[in-house]
């Protein structure tokens, strides 16, 4: 699903984002990306989204070489990737349903499909009752569920979560993790960058540890450490 082949990313001549990273994540895998702030987790994710180019090496996502991808096809590449962020990135002036529908609307899906898919996915994340509330009326955990719903409504083959539980209390975090786990069980590859030691240790999934832009550890059923 994801192949990083000798990937380096230099921001400035002196600032190293990633250095010679070799990672192979299989389709349907669940992988944690752990490391301190500035260790390169965000660079890893932004490279996956093709927000910028690596300085060296090649990245392949779902069989497609990102370096050879034309600028015009990048949006279609992103439709295949769902994203969840620490700060939710919801539109505060739109209802929960409209926030989820927005992802479908801007990709040009017909209104009929939107009316069918949105309630469906909101039921799935347990927010069927709050479709017409605005994000500010929801708890942080619920807002993150909306964000997960939006990321998954297109049924992407890859879901990226950048510290999705960073702003949540432990109990709420468990709820979000369960949601991500369920999404993973449907065959979606999940890559989650996190600081949440407890969660990583509990899940016993693959752990890729980064430090100063290098992969220092990559083990199956790993621990945070």
């Amino acid at each position, binding site marked *: 699903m994801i192949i990083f082949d000798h990937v380096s990313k230099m921001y400035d001549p002196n600032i190293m984002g990633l250095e010679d990273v070799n990672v192979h994540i299989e389709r349907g895998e669940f992988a944690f990306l752990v490391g301190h702030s500035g260790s390169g987790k965000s660079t890893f994710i932004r490279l996956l*989204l093709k927000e910028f180019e690596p300085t060296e090496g090649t990245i392949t996502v779902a069989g497609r070489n990102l370096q050879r991808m034309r600028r015009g096809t990048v949006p279609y*590449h*992103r439709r295949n990737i769902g994203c969840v962020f620490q700060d939710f990135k919801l*539109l505060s002036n739109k209802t929960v349903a409209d926030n989820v529908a927005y992802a479908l609307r*801007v990709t040009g899906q017909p209104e009929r499909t939107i009316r069918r898919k949105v309630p469906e996915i909101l039921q799935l994340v347990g927010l069927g009752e709050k479709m017409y509330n605005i994000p500010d009326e929801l708890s942080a955990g619920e807002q993150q569920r909306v964000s997960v719903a939006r990321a998954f409504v297109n049924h992407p083959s890859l879901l990226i979560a950048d510290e999705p539980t960073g702003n949540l209390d432990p109990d709420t975090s468990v709820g979000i993790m369960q949601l991500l786990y369920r999404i993973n069980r449907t065959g979606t590859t999940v890559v989650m960058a996190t600081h949440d030691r407890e969660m990583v240790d509990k899940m016993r999934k693959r752990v890729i540890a980064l430090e100063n832009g290098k992969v220092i550890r990559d083990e199956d059923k790993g621990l945070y450490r």
Partner: protein
Amino acid sequence: MQARFFFSEAISSLVKNWVMSVAAIVTVLVSMFILGLGTILFFNFQNAFSDLRNSLRVEVFMKNTASPEKIQELGQEIEAMPEVRDVEFISKEDALNKLRESLEGHEDLLEAISGNPLPPSYVITLRDPDSIDLVATRFFDNPLVDNSPGTHDGVKYAKETSEKVLSVTTYFFIGGTGFVVLLILASILLISNTIRLSIFARRREVEIMRLVGATNWFIRWPFIMEGVMTGMAGAAAAVALILLANNFLIESVVSKMPFFFKTGTVPLFWIVLIVILGGTLLGSGGSGLALRRFLKI
């Protein structure tokens, strides 16, 4: 469906940044108004000037001593010149009659004059006003012409008038064009700034659009529409003002100075079309500028 989405996004953006939108609309309005009004004035002046230029004539005064045969010969010569459209002979008597007419009510002045001192003359109308110099100089050294020694005061022609008319038209045109160009620049920059603010106000939406894979054009369209609508709103207001101004101001000037302005010569339809198209272009130009500089996709 998508068009409706773009439209509603653009409208909500316009309303949200209404102060900047109004500023941009007013600038477009002013620049397009001046452009339109300038064009109307330009047409009017052009008509008036071409009338004036066409009425430029050369008057050649004969010596009182010249024999009628020689004078007639000269008349035939003048008529044969290719630049001449029409030539009229004013005899001594005609000249006196004309003077008498113009002195109506003060005929007693003429009694002071013994006999008729007025010289006979030819009044030459030209085909092309630009050839006025060429034709006039031909008479400078003619022995029949009543030139005082060393001058050409026997030949009267509106050299200066013709040059003034030409230079006034040119200055008017250059000045007006420069002014409109400046205003157009100001409008483009203001629209671009409006769009920049709305890009900033909607950076979160833009970010989310990018993340969920909206195409670049999908992201751009609402902003382009916002710019175009700003331009069109300004242009529409300008059209209303131009028509109003044309009806009240210019028409009243025309009716007071019919010798200078002619009505019905201004292609209003085209001016309206140009103003609307101009406003739309300003709008798309402004948003294009802002998108290039500020929208990172």
